[in-house]
């Protein structure tokens, strides 16, 4: 097989099915940003170090810069654009806004996606669990503290709502 042979990719992104043809070497990040124009997933380091590109693959937080697009074949991807319910923010998003966690916002998409995956798997995380869940998400200016607290607030809210 040549590098440039196109392969079929069928997957769902934010609940919508897609059928694309991609080169085997294409990264999930490039498919999302360039093909699907979902630019809310950010490109930071491209080497798995910053977490700006974090998306959820079958509910798990993964770095889209380090996943081949074809690895998403037959699976479900959720990006930052698919987190809110229409105009209604997800509790994680709501808490980050209300708690003043966000500064420049470049790491925010990744933070939300890491937090979302955490709360799907572990609805009652400890502070240490939260720290661990976002340890791959670099932020240059918030100092993380307000992000950590916002995720705590969101977890409580989701619990309370059930």
């Amino acid at each position, binding site marked *: 097989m040549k590098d440039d042979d196109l392969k079929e990719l069928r997957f769902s992104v934010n609940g919508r099915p897609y059928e694309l043809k991609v080169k085997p070497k294409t990264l999930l990040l490039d498919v999302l940003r360039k093909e699907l124009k979902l*630019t809310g997933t950010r*490109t930071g380091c491209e*080497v798995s*170090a910053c977490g700006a590109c974090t998306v959820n693959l079958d509910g798990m937080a993964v770095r889209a810069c380090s996943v081949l697009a074809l690895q998403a074949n037959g699976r479900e991807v959720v990006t930052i654009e698919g987190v809110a319910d229409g105009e209604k923010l997800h509790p994680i*998003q709501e808490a980050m*806004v209300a708690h003043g966690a966000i500064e420049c916002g470049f790491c925010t998409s990744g933070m939300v996606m890491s937090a979302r995956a955490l709360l799907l798997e572990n609805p009652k995380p400890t502070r240490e669990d939260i720290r661990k869940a976002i340890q791959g998400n670099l932020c240059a*200016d918030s100092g993380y503290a307000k992000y950590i607290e916002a995720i705590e607030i969101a977890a409580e809210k989701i619990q309370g709502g059930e």
Partner: protein
Amino acid sequence: MGKEHAGEYSIIGKPIPRVDAKLKVTGQAKYAADIEVANMLWGCVKRSPHAHARILNIDTSKAERLPGVKAVITGKDFNGFTWGWSQPTRDEEPLAVKKVRYLYEGVAAVAAVDEDTAQEACDLIEVEYEPLPGVFTPFEAMKEGAPLVHENRPGNITVEYHWNFGDVEKAFAGSYLVREDTFQTPRMAKGYIEPPATVAYWPETDRLVFQGAKGSPYFPYRILSRCFNLPLSNVRIITPFIGCDFGGTKNDMTNGDFSAVMLAKKAGRPVKIVASQFDALTTDLRRHPMWVTIRTGVTKDGKITAIHTKIVSDGGAYTRMSPLTHFLTGICMGMPYHLPNFKHDVTCYFTNNPSSAAMRGHGIYHTTFARECQMDMIADELGIDRVEIRHRNIIKNPEPGTIYETINGAHIATAGTEECLTKVAEAVKWEERKKKERVKGSKAYGMGFATGTYLSGTQLSAHNACAGIVRVCEDGSVNYLTGATDVGMGSDTIGCALVAEVLGIALDDVDIKRVDTAFTPADPGSYGSRVTVLAGEAAINAAEDAKRQLREFAAKKLGAMEDEIVFKNRQVFVKSNHARSISWERLVRMACYDAPGRVIIGRGHSKRATDLHTLADFSTGKGDIGTNYSFTAQAAEVEVDVETGVVRCTDNSVIAHDCGFPLNTQAVETQVLGGSYHQGVAAALYEEFKMDKGLTLNPNFVDYKRPRAYEAPMTEVLHVITNDPFGPFGAKEASEGSTCSAPPAIINAIHDATGVWIKDLPAEPEKVYWALKEKREKEQKKEKQ
């Protein structure tokens, strides 16, 4: 002091949700790399594999023949154009023509149909170099006969200042103790996660549009106008959201910025260039590494008699902002302590390293580190408590209406340092704490203190214009236009909040237009903690102007005197009789429809930017660089693993910050937590570019260490309110001063815990380990004797 007046206001002085938070949290915010324009090409920069070399020949023919390539340029396309921070320092070319001066400097660029083709074409460009010997530290650069980075700059000197206030030698002679110590601050990355990106296009042959991650968009506005010989009216810089800046690269230009514009011109199509993180970490501007020697004299009771600072600094390949950086190293030495005699000798050298430039805490960061660590050394030598010695020297908050003038002629109307220091010492229970045992098993715990200061509302002589426009739409909604740029700190929110506060409307009623030089007024951009203080003043003045126009109309309608009209909670009423009122919306509609052609546009500018104080003189160091000055004191606790040398900052840390009046309490807290304490932790313990002959050895965020969420202490932030008369609603800058006090507080804490001094940042485990080992061995030797 400390009187809260937040109750008087409807919006400011409380937590204000950011106006852009929803766009950011849903991923809708567009950063430069997200911009796409129809027919767009991708650009790529060809970079030099030498740190210092003459360029003998560039052959682009193979690249030009590659299918998909639409334009290839070299430095020659720019016809000898040079640029720099100020007119006399224009020493840099958009792409190097005759000589490269640092590793990976751009020498050519390509635009092609996609990124891969552009990259491939770059690889096909053949450049012939004659490698030259280089200089890679200021100490090599200053040697006689050292290779010159710029042939016309003898001695490789970028900039030097020699200031003298009072008589330091006489003061030292009369001092009880004189101490001299040398401290070192390393080369640091700016730390933004968003690599610089640019999209440029020419909608018509003589009109340019440039959309880039620029914190000071009016720099490229002027530079590109000159470079492409365009009137300013034809240069349109549009600012997208910006993923942090912290000074430097996103203030001015990169090889990629110039290349995108030239390639777009040549190809006749839009061109986008997105830097990789590798590009950013090898070629973007860094914090200056400095060697600060500080000599301080004190009386027996610890009062400072004189300070003499001698600084050697590595400016890298080009001058960039170095004249400002080194000026800043000394300009605030007279704060927050009373300083009767002061001498400052600072020299910055060219080297064949990537250029250095502004970074958070610009200039002041280095000298604050040296002064605050040495303050603890002096306290210990004199047997004075480390908090007490600071109290003895602190400039007291001036009585309202009076001004304290520092030895170099800076004017302080409010200084909350004393209250800040008292508060933090109380918060960490220092008096009890200091008597406690430091070592518990293999861990040692220590508490460190430091104070800091920073200028707000930078005043520089040129390009200081700063204005705002408030356009009231006929339905009562408002457009606020500013040339100021929010790079993440929240100034867009503050601007909207100030406009809404003045007009008595809701925050939601005000929409901010991000910078578009075709419409927004000129502004120097985001640096020197200037935006809230100066653009804030301009926003207030513009809103007042719009309000005056509406008030005139309201007075007529309500049959009252103009000064009787009040705007509050979207109502406009007569002060003596609230029943005589009209809603904001109705008033605006009536005013707009009253006479054909009437529009309500308020305009205002910052007068304090230019008129308040005498501008500082770079050659003598005299005068004001700030409109006003913020103050900070902080206490930081560390846990040192005495076996491994690993240092951790604990949650037991407190920062008290005097930003005059916190306009948005929430934003101030997040800024102080993240933009100061956390960045301070990063600088104190982790961050440093490792270099080898101009090569950056750790150009990625795996090898370049930075603290992550599990290393983030949950600091407490305390507000100290001083209501500065020179700031909008009493405000001063927030959190840049506290960036400067964090590293010394942490280093002082390590000393408190273990008795070792780490005088060169960062205090990596290895350094601490060896220092502890050396101390143990010395102690063992002593015991044997």
